[in-house]
């Protein structure tokens, strides 16, 4: 619980003191992962720009509380990009692909809010946010698991409180994000 509060405090501090000169675009260049796709047993590749998000949003049912929650989140977004590959056998991604993503996340404005590495589980999860003014304008997640490799990039104004309200819905597991003060 303390960890969660600490993470939220970091986020709150970044939002409060983040550099106003940060690049407002939270989009990162994703590596070409065609080789992974060929080897993966399951692939999730999502590329939704602002136009497609708008189109998707129109088909979200406002009367359905779950979909209405998603709609609220999507309203401030400019893009959602996901590359997730699941393998039958343990797999290590190319270092160059991982480095390409990480190097972009060292740019001004981006901050790593979570960096968890477990040697035991052979898992490495990193969460970054791009802060512009007092608003989180981008989110990036890099997750390397023994049989899974995932890159997530969400571009636009991300409302953590709304994301919090989405937890547990639509089959989404509970995030345990506490409400921001």
């Amino acid at each position, binding site marked *: 619980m303390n960890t969660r509060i600490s993470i939220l405090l970091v986020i709150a501090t970044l939002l409060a003191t983040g550099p106003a000169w940060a690049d407002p675009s939270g989009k990162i260049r994703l590596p070409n992962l065609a080789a992974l796709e060929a080897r993966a047993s399951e692939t999730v590749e999502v590329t939704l720009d602002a136009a497609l998000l708008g189109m998707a949003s129109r088909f979200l049912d406002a009367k359905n509380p779950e979909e209405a929650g998603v709609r609220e989140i999507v309203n401030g977004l400019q893009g959602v*990009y996901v590359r997730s590959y699941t393998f039958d056998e343990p797999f290590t991604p190319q270092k160059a692909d991982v480095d390409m993503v990480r190097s972009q996340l060292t740019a001004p404005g981006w901050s790593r809010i979570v960096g968890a590495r477990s040697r035991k589980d052979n898992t490495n999860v990193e969460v970054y946010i791009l802060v512009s003014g007092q608003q989180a304008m981008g989110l990036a997640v890099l997750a390397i698991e023994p049989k899974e490799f995932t890159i997530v990039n969400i571009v636009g104004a991300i409302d953590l409180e709304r994301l919090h309200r989405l937890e547990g819905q639509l089959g989404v*597991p509970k995030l345990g994000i506490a409400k921001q003060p």
Partner: protein
Amino acid sequence: MTEELENELRRSLRTNDPGELFTRRVMQRLPHEHRAAPRRWLTWSAGLAASLLLVFGIRQKVLEQREQAAGLRAKQELLEALRVTSGKLDLAYQAVDKENET
């Protein structure tokens, strides 16, 4: 004098209804295709307009269906993307919690 002449001319040149019988006779003497032509032109125009409306309607319907399919696909992708994102954020929090416990 001039006025009288004018009046006389007006009387002589005024239009007179030739009557129903005269009109019918003239129409009967006209070749058949001359009489049918306006009606055929109208039929063709109406047919063309109806065809155009039909084509336009079908095209609109196809476009609407395509847009709906694309929208529903985008919605599914969005939900899938949020599911993956939430799953990985959850993994991050769990990993941090585990680190703190040890």
